[in-house]
């Protein structure tokens, strides 16, 4: 059973995960990775340009989620193997982070209430009376060109929140399912390819989806993934079509 998450604002993968696991009787096995991905993409594609850092932090979480999900689907072993043990440690670590993050989130809500409460008090922020200016220390002693430029940009830049113009962007129409099919099609033809070549013609958000698609295919044992060291080329080798009905 798949759970949909409604994201008003994408605040990062930890926030997303917190929202997911805080719901009643939801566990990782029930969370559809494609739903999460689609929600993430919906939330971020409205922004026009996807920030690479946001995207990569999402990927790390999606991969962890995927791993935990596969763990959940495995039969319980009496003696955990080392891999399983590591995964469980990872889970505890993730839980620890979630608890900490959740505390700060609650503290932020309190801060906001306190700010509202204090909003009625206004202090003076006036310039010094003219006759006192000669007495005052040099207020420009730390001034820098960057400060001037930033202040000018703030004052002369767009007044309201900029309307993000997405008209020049190809609307993101590809879902994870579609991307799994597309990747299968490309790989069944090429048989072996680097990840970079596989998505050379894709836009950044689609690359994110294609990476998740490959993880799904890997889980279904349809592909082999090789990477000799971090940041090195990822080589994808085609093995067999995914079984029908796989995500």
């Amino acid at each position: 059973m798949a759970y949909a998450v409604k994201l008003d604002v994408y605040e990062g993968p930890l926030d997303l995960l917190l929202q997911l696991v805080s719901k009643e009787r939801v566990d990782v096995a029930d969370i559809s990775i494609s739903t999460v991905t689609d929600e993430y993409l919906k939330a971020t594609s409205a922004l026009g340009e996807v920030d690479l850092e946001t995207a990569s932090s999402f990927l790390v979480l999606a991969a962890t989620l995927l791993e935990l999900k596969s763990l959940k689907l495995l039969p319980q072993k009496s003696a955990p193997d080392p891999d399983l043990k590591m995964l469980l440690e990872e889970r505890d670590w993730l839980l620890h982070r979630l608890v900490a993050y959740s505390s700060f989130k609650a503290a932020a809500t309190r801060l906001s209430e306190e700010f509202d409460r204090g909003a009625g008090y206004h202090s003076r922020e006036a310039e010094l009376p003219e006759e006192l200016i000669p007495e005052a220390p040099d207020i420009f002693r730390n001034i820098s060109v960057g400060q001037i430029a930033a202040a000018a940009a703030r004052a002369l830049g767009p007044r309201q929140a900029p309307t993000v113009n997405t008209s020049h962007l190809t609307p993101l129409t590809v879902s994870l399912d579609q991307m799994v099919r597309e990747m299968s099609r490309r790989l069944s033809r090429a048989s072996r390819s680097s990840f970079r070549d596989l998505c050379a013609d894709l836009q950044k958000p689609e690359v994110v989806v294609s990476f998740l698609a490959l993880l799904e295919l890997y889980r279904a044992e349809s592909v082999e993934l090789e990477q000799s060291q971090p940041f090195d080329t990822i080589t994808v080798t085609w093995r067999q079509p995914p079984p029908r009905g796989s995500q």
Partner: protein
Amino acid sequence: MKAEDDVLRALEAVLFIADEPLPTADLALLFELPAGEVEALLGILADRCQAHGRGVVLRRVAGGWRLATHPDTAPYLERFVGEHRAGRLTQAALETLAIVAYRQPISRIQLAEIRGVSCDAVMRTLLSRGMVKEVGRDQGPGQAILYGTTTYFLERLGLDSVDQLPPLAEFMPDAESVERMESGLGPGL
């Protein structure tokens, strides 16, 4: 009619916050009262400042009303300003200086249009600190005074000329709009 004490309290608060003298007409508009009544209330406020031995007085100056420190307190203020008041550049002063730097020559009216508030107090600070100066007059009707930055301003920033100021594009979009984009807030939120 509004309770007199409530209006007096609000009147004092408004004068306390304002950076510029406030004309009677503006105050009348704000409190939705006839100008004559506002003047009477201002009179009461001025009397109270005196009667209660307060450190501030209400003064009628060119352009309106403003709260100012009592003249007898000047020696303490000079000492305080020299020794204690953190010589901090206000946000308003930094912003105004930045606009003059990038849009010179510019008039006070144009400055006020960009910032959305009057810049007179801030301009006094910048003028008296020698960071900006009058550089000419507008050709149009009214012949508004135009301002620009000084050689001293360039010296302080270590620049040879204003042409060396970095292009603004590098600093846009500003921090908050980037944040809005990153956190996914749409326009109007």
